[in-house]
């Protein structure tokens, strides 16, 4: 009788140990990677939007400058730096990356466990009902106590966790390894895009600066002293925004390169127990992405 009570408990302990110990490093690493990757994705999407808006402003400024000339600019000729299709393609890929990072984190941490808990609890409760029914309808005298039913539920939950963990351990690292070249290709592609955006943003600001200067000089005395002063004061602000935007895009390029290196370390760590260097890389990536997010807020506030 004593053995009968001890057995489920021992089984539970054994299965919980099997399920818990093997899962945690992968779960911890993928969760940290997902959180950092999500920040990088958000920063990159913001950068595209900011670059397109800036270019629109530069083109509008050119439209104004040419308005009273013999060859005025046709407003229809204003085109976005990246069209809708291009923005959607980039946004879809970045969303795909975010989904990937979130899914590997969810799978590794066993996000479906509430369903498993429910099924295991129902099984224990039904087992008790079965015992009661057997006791009432047969002379066998089987009696399943509440403690034993709960132990059965816990054992089933542990067994489920173990099976899930085995499934995750055998398949998720393979998916991470398969994804690694895609992350590398994505990182290079985004970096190339950002190089173009930096080049373009630099000239967009230069155009805004020269058009603003031309506006002040052509306006001459039609501006009041106060208005003139305010317009002239905008010149150094344009230059400061130019530098800040370039710094931000350069930092984002660096974050994206770190993302690829971190994912590569994640792919290696998924099959190895040594993840110390990965933890350092994830911390570095997260710090870099968080710095950028704060920077975006300050930049958008300063441009108002």
């Amino acid at each position, binding site marked *: 009788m004593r053995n009968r009570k001890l057995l489920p408990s021992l089984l539970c302990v054994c299965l919980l140990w099997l399920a818990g110990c093997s899962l945690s490093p992968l779960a911890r690493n993928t969760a940290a990677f997902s959180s950092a990757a999500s920040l990088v994705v958000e920063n990159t999407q913001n950068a595209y939007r900011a670059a397109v808006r800036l*270019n629109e402003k*530069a*083109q509008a400024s*050119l439209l104004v*400058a*040419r308005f009273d000339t013999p060859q005025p600019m046709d407003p229809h000729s204003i085109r976005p*730096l*990246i*069209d809708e*299709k*291009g923005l959607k*393609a*980039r946004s*879809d*890929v970045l969303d*795909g*990356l975010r*989904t*990937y990072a979130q*899914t590997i984190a969810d*799978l590794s941490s066993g996000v*479906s466990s509430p369903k*498993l808990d429910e*099924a*295991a609890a*129902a*099984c224990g409760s*039904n*087992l008790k*009902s*079965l015992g*009661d*029914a*057997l006791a*009432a*309808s*047969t002379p066998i005298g089987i009696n399943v106590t509440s403690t034993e039913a709960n132990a059965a539920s816990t054992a*089933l939950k542990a067994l*489920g966790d173990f*099976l899930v963990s085995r499934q*995750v351990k055998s*398949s*998720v690292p393979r*998916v991470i390894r398969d*994804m690694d070249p*895609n992350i590398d290709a*994505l990182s290079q*592609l985004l970096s190339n*895009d950002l190089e*173009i955006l930096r*080049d*373009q943003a630099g*000239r967009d600001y*230069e*155009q805004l600066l*020269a*058009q603003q*200067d*031309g506006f002040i000089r*052509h306006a001459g005395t039609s501006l009041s002293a106060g208005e003139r002063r305010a317009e002239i004061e905008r010149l150094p602000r344009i230059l400061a925004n130019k530098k800040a935007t370039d710094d931000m895009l350069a930092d984002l390029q660096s974050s994206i390169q770190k993302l690829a290196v971190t994912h590569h370390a994640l792919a290696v760590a998924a099959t190895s127990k040594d993840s110390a260097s990965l933890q350092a890389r994830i911390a570095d990536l997260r710090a870099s992405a968080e710095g950028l997010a704060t920077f975006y807020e300050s930049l958008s506030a300063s441009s108002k």
Partner: protein
Amino acid sequence: MPPKKISAKKTSSPAQSPVAAATPPAPPAPALPPAFTNPDIVDAYKALYDILGRAYWDASDLNAKDTIQGARDHIYEILTDLNRARLEANTALFLALKSKIDDNNKALDDIKEKINSITKNISTASSVIAAIAKVLSIAPVLL
């Protein structure tokens, strides 16, 4: 002043044809204008834009400034069209990469499905036990 005007003249003539070449009538993914696949030419245009920029700020006469900036605007448009074309070329690469990332996410969905089937198996076992218990509870009435 005369040297600045010469610079402006030099830029206004090459500015015309590459602009037309860089903006073909809305093809799905326009290729870069052949002349601009040469990085030396692109770098030369960028250098010219910067030199004209310095000339603009050095000039003290408003007419000279306007002439220089006019030429600079043309180069700006050429280089913007070039960047637009480069970004559009990258769009095709993003679309190709998207299908690969989707494939990977599909593999993750399959794993999710396998995990769900583990839960489902435990639920099925629970249902079987419940069904047996129900039969046993009504068996004495039937017998």
